[in-house]
């Protein structure tokens, strides 16, 4: 686990809200945080290098940029769980797949180029596994993003 000092916390808390879209964003951040911009970038690079930060860059709402997505689940009999996990692993449209402790014990995200692609993939999974897919596309987004008080 990474130990953060006071400067790190202020820096990460500030950056969780995004780099300002001004001509010289690091200058603005430097004056907000009262620290030289070189120090800010150097510390961010260290936090990226050691894995505390996973990525610096634009965070896209990929659905607005084309493509279709859904959250889906399966209720998989325990003795077939690993087999079905391997079957889903082979399907490129399956982005994330988690075991969750519930009657619906396998939860995954599908990402395809078109809405029809989602239906085709669900059909493929149902045919492959003989299980019926619970398809839960989002209807309204209320919130995305974490603002941890670090």
């Amino acid at each position, binding site marked *: *686990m*990474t130990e953060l000092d006071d400067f790190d916390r202020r820096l*990460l808390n500030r*950056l*969780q*809200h995004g*780099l300002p879209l001004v*001509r*010289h*964003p690091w200058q603005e951040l430097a004056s907000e945080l009262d620290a030289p911009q070189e120090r800010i*970038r150097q510390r*961010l690079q260290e936090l*990226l290098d050691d*894995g*505390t*930060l*996973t*990525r*610096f*860059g*634009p*965070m*896209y*709402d*990929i659905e*607005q*940029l084309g*493509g279709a*997505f859904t*959250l889906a689940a399966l209720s998989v009999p325990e003795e077939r769980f690993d087999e079905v996990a391997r079957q889903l*692993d082979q*399907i490129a*449209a*399956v*982005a*994330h*797949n*988690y*075991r*969750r*402790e519930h009657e619906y014990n*396998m939860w995954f995200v599908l*990402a*395809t*180029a078109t809405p029809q692609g989602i239906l*085709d*993939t669900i059909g493929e999974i149902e045919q492959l596994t003989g299980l019926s897919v*619970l398809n*839960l596309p*989002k209807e*309204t*987004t*209320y*919130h*995305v*993003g*974490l*603002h*941890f008080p*670090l």
Partner: protein
Amino acid sequence: MSDCISPSDLKLAQRLMSFTEAGMPLVDDPWAWLAGRMELPVEETLALLQRLQDSGAIRRIAAVPNHYRLGYTFNGMTVWDVDDEHIDRLGQEVGNFHFVSHCYRRPRREGWRYNLFAMVHGLSAEEIERERDLVRRHLGEHCRADTMLVSSKILKKTGLRIHSKPKE
């Protein structure tokens, strides 16, 4: 938010995404770096970013913390059966809790009664239980049932990419 982006901006955004999929370098002038890739003037690149951010296609340009490395190792997908006539207000309010990372309305199905999803994060199992309790008290009489699905194993995790050929 959510103004539609123009077809030409959509094309530019897709190029932008291809250049920044792995992130941006921490250079002195990040917009000039992007402008070089996009083969656009810096001012146009910055204006494009502003339009994409205004429309919601870019949420923000930010550093993404690895929650696990920062101790936030516990998370739970809380799901709630909320009155349809109150869900939009309550969904917004639940999304405003600082420990909620994602909050969506999803359809009910036969055998699935929950229409509000909120992903909660915390430093311990007890903490996410407390968070869940805060949400439950906030929803009050407008929620008929709820449960929490805790993930016990990551079976597959790839970045979200758009696959044009689902039958690969």
